[in-house]
């Protein structure tokens, strides 16, 4: 019956499989695979689907805690937020497609991550992103920034989920390989989470959503190979997002779930029908039989191979309760979506595909999943970079000039040009969107809110993967704590170069170890994530970028604070820094890069115990109403954080400075675990700090002026800062 078209190793190799992997397929099948079968193996065993290079290390991450309802392994992680509710979230990359076609690449990235979340039974309530582009004056940067921004907005705005935050960096290592990571956060009833494991042999398998075309065939394999000019011409048909159909699909699925008709459900993401059918069947310990002639297609003469590997968007696979089939169909009719029984669950533990009256594929499921190769790739870390002294980086720049230069750099300038293109208010529960530390989104109909942030500082990770990995978690932690919310858990997106190179593999190992350590100490388990490797162009690797997406919870959203100064004549405290401090960590800082013109050097060390103590203190004092505004100190250091608070609140301040030869380091050093806060009662607050044994002191006072006064000699008008801070991106993009 089966057509043995005699695939050879050359075919397997062209699909990205190694010789050993090819031999393993022959052994498991006890025959040669046909084209469709080989395609299925290559997709399932691709880096993108199998995590073969990273799995060994991902297993070391902490994934448990009383708050965790579902950790990694499902479409998205699920975390308890009390009152019978749960938050469901995940982050995912769409790097390569976004480089090829920025608008559609970014749009489909958003669509894909949304499906991961509503597949679990959650209504998505917020989107964030983490973007990395090449140098600001690289010929492609403008085109990519505008396309990606429009694409993210194009999908999110239309489907009606607010885009509330994110981050953007520019660096030459991303000139030929941008990063587009999208995170979605949803809300569900804790006892009504839907999973992908198929159940009940004999139950119908239903295909819903958009029709299948020849889009993005073998995208999963594409995402697992290095980029070169050659791949640019070999590219598959670009996937086009259809947020309108995405919206209908989301509403229909949520309605269907509420009707109790769904037994298991899985979106068709990377590797489309292949990974969804294989994962559903194998997780359920069952098998599946699908008649490919029944799959709704929008093009003629699609082969089994093409149908199985198409990455057309807005599609889902589900197993439904046969008694509910008519209810289910009626719901999809209402939303004008295809609803097609295409097969059934079996107990054979095999994937059987029928086409044109014959068998197009008949393979055991176990090898696809269990035998997926897992590598223990050798790694050799680069030598750690030297600690750079302040003296070696300080130049004869005036504090004021340095501040202006930093605030108008692409690294620190306002991202308004980007985030004003995102509908951040739809759903009417957004309390704080882009522009502050973490976004705050109300848990609809309650007093609670979720605080959400995405963070990573790639230059730190490149210099020291372990510290950099830990720092990404620490910064996300600070952003959440600075709103008054309690951090709950993280998702992560590991963007690295080619893991077959030992130094890159060492970055991966180091960063995962750093993330793991930080998550343990800070009690923010990893509940979901995504790995994107081979981010290289013509062998130039990107700056490693393990993005952390953290979600926290605040019980009374009215107690939350923002970064902007709120009132005049109140004390400004720095937390996490002794009063006699006159220096700062300039190595590998934005100051070093922008003002001193020197990249590299050891990044600021991370002290997780200090992070924990300071974060908890800040959160508590916000809840008690002692803190009226809070901002973590990160890129650009203390003075940049201060300027951001002043701009946001539109109030000036007087700042005391130490007597110091290293004033620039004091002002712009990037030492970790620090916050700036505005408090009403300075004496009481100092006493609280002392009582908690925390370093911290008053450094200034808010003023009813539009001026920052820094020490006795320096005054800077907010207008001047605002002007350069706000005009940078619009000018760059003009």
């Amino acid at each position, binding site marked *: 019956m089966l057509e043995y078209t005699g695939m050879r190793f050359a075919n397997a190799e062209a699909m990205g499989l190694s010789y050993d992997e090819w031999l393993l397929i022959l052994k498991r099948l006890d025959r040669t695979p046909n084209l469709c079968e080989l395609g299925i193996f290559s997709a399932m065993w691709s880096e993108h689907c199998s995590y073969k290079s990273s799995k060994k290390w991902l297993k070391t991450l902490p994934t448990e805690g009383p708050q965790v309802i579902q950790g990694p392994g499902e479409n998205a992680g699920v975390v308890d937020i009390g009152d019978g509710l749960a938050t469901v979230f995940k982050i995912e990359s769409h790097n390569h497609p976004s480089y*090829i*076609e920025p*608008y*559609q690449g970014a749009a489909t990235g958003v669509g894909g991550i949304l499906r991961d979340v509503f597949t679990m039974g959650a209504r998505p309530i917020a989107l964030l992103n983490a973007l990395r582009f090449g140098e600001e004056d690289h010929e492609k940067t403008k085109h990519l920034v505008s396309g990606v921004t429009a694409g993210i907005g194009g999908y999110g705005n239309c489907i009606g989920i607010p885009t509330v935050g994110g981050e953007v960096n520019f660096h030459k290592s991303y000139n030929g390989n941008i990063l587009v990571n999208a995170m979605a956060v949803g809300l569900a009833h804790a006892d009504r989470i839907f999973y992908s494991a198929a159940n009940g042999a004999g139950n119908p398998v239903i295909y819903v959503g*958009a029709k299948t*075309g*020849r*889009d993005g065939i073998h995208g999963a394999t594409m995402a697992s190979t290095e980029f070169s000019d050659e791949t640019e011409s070999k*590219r598959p*048909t*670009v*996937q*086009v997002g*259809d947020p*309108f*159909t995405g919206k209908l699909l989301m509403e229909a699925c949520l309605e269907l779930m509420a009707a109790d008709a769904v037994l298991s459900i899985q979106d068709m993401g990377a590797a489309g029908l292949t990974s969804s059918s294989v994962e559903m069947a194998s997780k359920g310990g069952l098998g599946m039989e699908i008649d490919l002639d029944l799959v709704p297609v*929008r*093009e003629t003469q699609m082969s089994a191979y093409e149908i199985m590997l198409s990455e*057309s*968007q807005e599609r889902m696979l589900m197993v439904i309760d046969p008694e509910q089939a008519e209810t289910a169909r009626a719901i999809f009719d209402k939303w*004008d979506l295809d609803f097609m029984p295409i097969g059934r669950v079996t107990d054979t533990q095999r994937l059987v595909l029928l086409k044109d009256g014959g068998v197009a594929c008949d393979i055991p499921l176990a090898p696809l999943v269990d035998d997926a190769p897992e590598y223990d790739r050798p790694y050799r870390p680069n030598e750690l970079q030297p600690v750079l002294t302040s003296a070696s980086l300080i130049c004869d720049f005036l504090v004021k000039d340095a501040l202006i230069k930093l605030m108008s750099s692409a690294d620190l300038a306002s991202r308004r040009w980007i985030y004003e293109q995102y509908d951040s208010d739809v759903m009417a529960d957004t309390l704080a969107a882009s522009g502050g530390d973490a976004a705050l989104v109300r848990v609809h109909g309650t007093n609670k809110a979720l605080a959400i942030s995405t963070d990573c500082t790639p230059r730190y990770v490149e210099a020291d993967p372990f510290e950099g990995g830990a720092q990404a978690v620490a910064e996300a932690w600070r952003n959440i704590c600075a709103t008054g919310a309690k951090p709950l858990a993280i998702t992560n997106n590991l963007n690295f170069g080619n893991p077959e190179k030992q130094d890159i593999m060492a970055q991966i190992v180091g960063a995962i170890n750093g993330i793991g350590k930080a998550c343990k100490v800070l009690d923010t388990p990893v509940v979901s994530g995504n790995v994107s490797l081979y981010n290289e162009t013509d062998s130039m690797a990107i700056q490693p970028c393990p993005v952390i997406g953290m979600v926290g919870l605040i019980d009374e959203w009215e107690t939350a604070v923002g970064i902007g100064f709120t009132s005049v004549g109140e004390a400004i405290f720095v937390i996490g820094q002794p009063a006699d401090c006159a220096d700062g960590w300039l190595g590998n800082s934005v100051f070093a890069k922008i003002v001193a013109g020197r990249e590299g050097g050891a990044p600021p060390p991370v002290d997780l115990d200090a992070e924990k103590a300071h974060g908890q203190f800040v959160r508590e004092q916000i809840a008690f109403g002692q803190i009226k505004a809070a901002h973590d100190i990160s890129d650009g250091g203390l003075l940049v954080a201060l300027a951001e608070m002043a701009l946001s609140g539109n109030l000036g301040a007087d700042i005391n400075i130490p007597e110091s030869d290293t004033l620039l380091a004091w002002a712009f050093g990037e030492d970790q675990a620090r916050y700036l806060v505005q408090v009403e009662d300075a004496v009481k607050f100092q006493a609280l700090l002392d009582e908690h044994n925390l370093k911290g002191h008053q450094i200034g006072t808010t003023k009813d002026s539009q001026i920052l006064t820094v020490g006795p000699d320096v005054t800077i008008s907010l207008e001047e800062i605002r002007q350069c801070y706000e005009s940078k991106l619009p000018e760059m993009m003009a």
Partner: protein
Amino acid sequence: MEVKINISLKQGVLDPQGRAVESALISLGYSEANNVRIGKQITLEIEAEDASRAQQRAARMCETLLANTVIEDYSIEVADPS
């Protein structure tokens, strides 16, 4: 010279807009409508010595800006001034 540039999605690329318009036409009673695709038509004037030169410049414009050649095809018509 008057130049018309038609930009359409490549074969095989999903056209959600065309699909939505098609089903709207059908629900409005135009059941005879089929295979609706939506593209752009750009008209412009190009100062050039002759039609072939204008055609050439228009093609350059398409490649560098007007068309997204990853997903779109274009065709150019130069109105013969004679």
